[in-house]
């Protein structure tokens, strides 16, 4: 509920409470035997007093609200002024000195500007902040209360996370175990500092250590995965280096999964190789699903990894099979079309649907294969999903395919599996 509404509610409750109290007093006086006129007089006086008191309370509240709004508006205007100052500094202007009473608004504005800035301009602003002593002042403010979780200290910590000055690393390291809000600010801060490093190794190690400590401290590590993934992406050009460390065996599963998701979502050039290698080294459960999901997102899969993706289409976990099927969209045609043909007959409907969708995404070759599947796939569910995908009536398949072939077990065909594949697959394979 917003503050003005809360204030109005408070006033209403206060008024009702006072009215009830006074009525009770008046009734009590009446029952004590006083004459009726005196009771009424005292009641009128009491109610008048209450009215005046309520008006005073209301006026005080309104004054407080408007004063608070005025302060907020003034602060906003000051922040806007400082936004201009830091924007000018980013463009190459010289930074002015910062009065002590303006440090917080100046830091707020700097944090807002640095959220949008990178490169040389960001370095100019950070240099100015340091030269004017603002970073030092914010560090003092944060250190003073971060242990006791004071709001002012946490706000200073959050501003420092956006300012991302390397002098704050020690503070971030300490804050990562100091509660939810400080920990999140600390992780964001260390990632942003990392993004600005020319030599990232030391900060990468610190970040990995902080993530491990953070995950062992939180009640529900899986629940913080989306935040962690978003924070990792703030590490900029060093995301690959950081994720390589986080994907190592022995790391927290949530850290590994978040790293895979982050590097894939970043679409960085090294993403495919990193995740592909991790898949080849052996992943399990959620990390394996995340890797396959990521490879599907990247879209181009190296031939060396293609075999592992095809193998994953036969995994026990349905979720892994679905993600593997989607990833087949980026595998070379020869392998992918044959595997997708098999996946059309997967026991799980979700996998069959994913296979038919992936075939459609393959363009003309995939669509041709789907049409073949409608009439010639040995599995009736495969024929069904293919016809559903293409919008072709299943009855047409029954009309075309001879009855004695419909329930034929592929194992009884006698020849190698390849010979059972339709012409389209062989032609596609020969072409690819």
């Amino acid at each position: 509920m917003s503050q003005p509404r809360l204030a109005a509610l408070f006033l209403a409750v206060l008024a009702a409470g006072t009215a009830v109290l006074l009525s009770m007093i008046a009734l009590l006086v009446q029952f004590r035997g006083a004459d009726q006129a005196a009771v009424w007089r005292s009641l009128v006086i009491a109610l008048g007093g209450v009215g005046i008191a309520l008006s005073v309370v209301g006026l005080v509240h309104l004054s407080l609200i408007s004063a608070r709004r005025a302060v907020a508006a003034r602060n906003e205007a000051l922040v806007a002024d400082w936004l201009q100052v830091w924007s000018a500094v980013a463009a190459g202007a010289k930074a002015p000195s910062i009065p002590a009473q303006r440090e917080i608004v100046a830091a707020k504005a700097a944090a807002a500007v640095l959220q949008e800035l990178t490169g040389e301009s960001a370095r100019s602003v950070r240099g100015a902040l340091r030269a004017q002593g603002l970073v030092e002042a914010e560090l003092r403010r944060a250190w003073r209360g971060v242990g006791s979780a004071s709001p002012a200290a946490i706000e200073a910590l959050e501003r420092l996370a956006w300012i991302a000055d390397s002098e704050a690393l020690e503070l971030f390291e300490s804050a990562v175990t100091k509660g939810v809000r400080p920990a999140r600010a600390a992780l964001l801060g260390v990632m942003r500092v990392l993004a600005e490093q020319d030599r990232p190794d030391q900060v990468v190690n610190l970040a990995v250590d902080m993530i491990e400590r953070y995950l062992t401290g939180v009640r529900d590590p899986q629940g913080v995965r989306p935040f962690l993934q978003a924070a990792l992406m703030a590490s900029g050009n060093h995301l690959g280096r950081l994720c390589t460390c986080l994907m190592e065996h022995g790391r927290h599963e949530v850290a590994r999964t978040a790293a895979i998701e982050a590097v894939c979502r970043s679409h960085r050039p090294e993403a495919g190789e990193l995740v592909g290698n991790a898949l080849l080294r052996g992943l399990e459960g959620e990390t394996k699903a995340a890797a396959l999901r990521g490879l599907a997102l990247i879209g181009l899969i190296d031939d060396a990894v293609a075999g592992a993706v095809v193998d994953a289409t036969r995994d026990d976990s349905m979720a892994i099979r679905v993600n593997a099927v989607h990833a087949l969209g980026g595998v070379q045609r020869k392998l992918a079309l044959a595997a997708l043909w098999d996946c059309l007959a997967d026991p799980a409907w979700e996998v069959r649907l994913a296979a038919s969708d992936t075939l459609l995404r393959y363009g003309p070759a995939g669509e041709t294969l789907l049409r073949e599947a409608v009439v010639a796939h040995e599995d009736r569910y495969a024929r069904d999903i293919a016809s559903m995908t293409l919008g072709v009536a299943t009855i047409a398949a029954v009309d075309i395919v001879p009855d004695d072939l419909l329930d034929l077990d592929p194992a009884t065909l006698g020849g190698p599996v390849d010979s059972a594949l339709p012409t389209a697959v062989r032609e596609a394979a020969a072409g690819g």
Partner: protein
Amino acid sequence: MHNQLRGNVAGTVALVALSRENPRRTIASALARAGWHVVLATTGTQAFDVARRDLPDLVVVGSDLEPIADGVNAAQAIADLELGPRRPRLVLVSAHNDEQTAALARAARVDRVVIVPEPVSGPGLALPSHGLTPPGSTSVPAGGAPEGRHETAPGSRQLWVVDDNQAVRLLVRFAFARERWSVREFEDLASAQRAAVEVKAGSIGQPHAIVLDIHLPDGNGLDNVRRFAATGAAIVVVSNLAGPEHVERAFAAGAADLVSKPFDPRNLVARVARAVMATPPGIVSHDVIPTVATPASANAPSVVMTHWG
């Protein structure tokens, strides 16, 4: 060029493989608007791999792409591919109508050759020509770049920035003001669209470039790229959502560049200047695109940006 491409092709997947950005983007946009699913490649190897993977029905390939191997040109290599039962139509794009081009066209058995001369920058000419000429013409006269707003003095360049974030608007304003651009700020799409209508009516001057955010309080910037491009400005999309889908949508809608946030304003100035130079005046105008089209809709064409490690 657009009509020629539209008239000659009727397939679904088109591969546009050109090393020069300007004709690549222009041809891709034209094909996408004509209903093609366009895949882009910038090197010979990419083109070859994409052709093998996506079985395009049309291949527009540049003669200047670097050889695949042992001096084999990409066009020739693609022509030699066994791309399914139907051979794709091959259009060779070259900067020179010379014997070398003719030899390559013969070797690759191309269906058509399009001559797109190199941009020409004459003395005192601020910006080069977009370089697209109809097939058959062979050169652009020296200093023959189109007349127009691009040739105004640098001091009078106009920029619009459409972003709800005050910090971004200020960063852009200060950075461009330093380079003597005149910057007009808009907090939302509605106010920018009103200004675009005024440009169309001639009551205010055309902007040279528009820096456009994606997420705005009253709509999606990407849905409005075409509308803003109709002002004749180079559209540079600036967003923290620069994923492949946004890249695809932005360029398909006619954006000249896409810059991801956080950004370096000095770098943005350079990229906007480059986008202004590369934007062909008159390619997109309010006469041909009166309303907003959403490329993501069911029948809308698309341009696929292929990412290569």
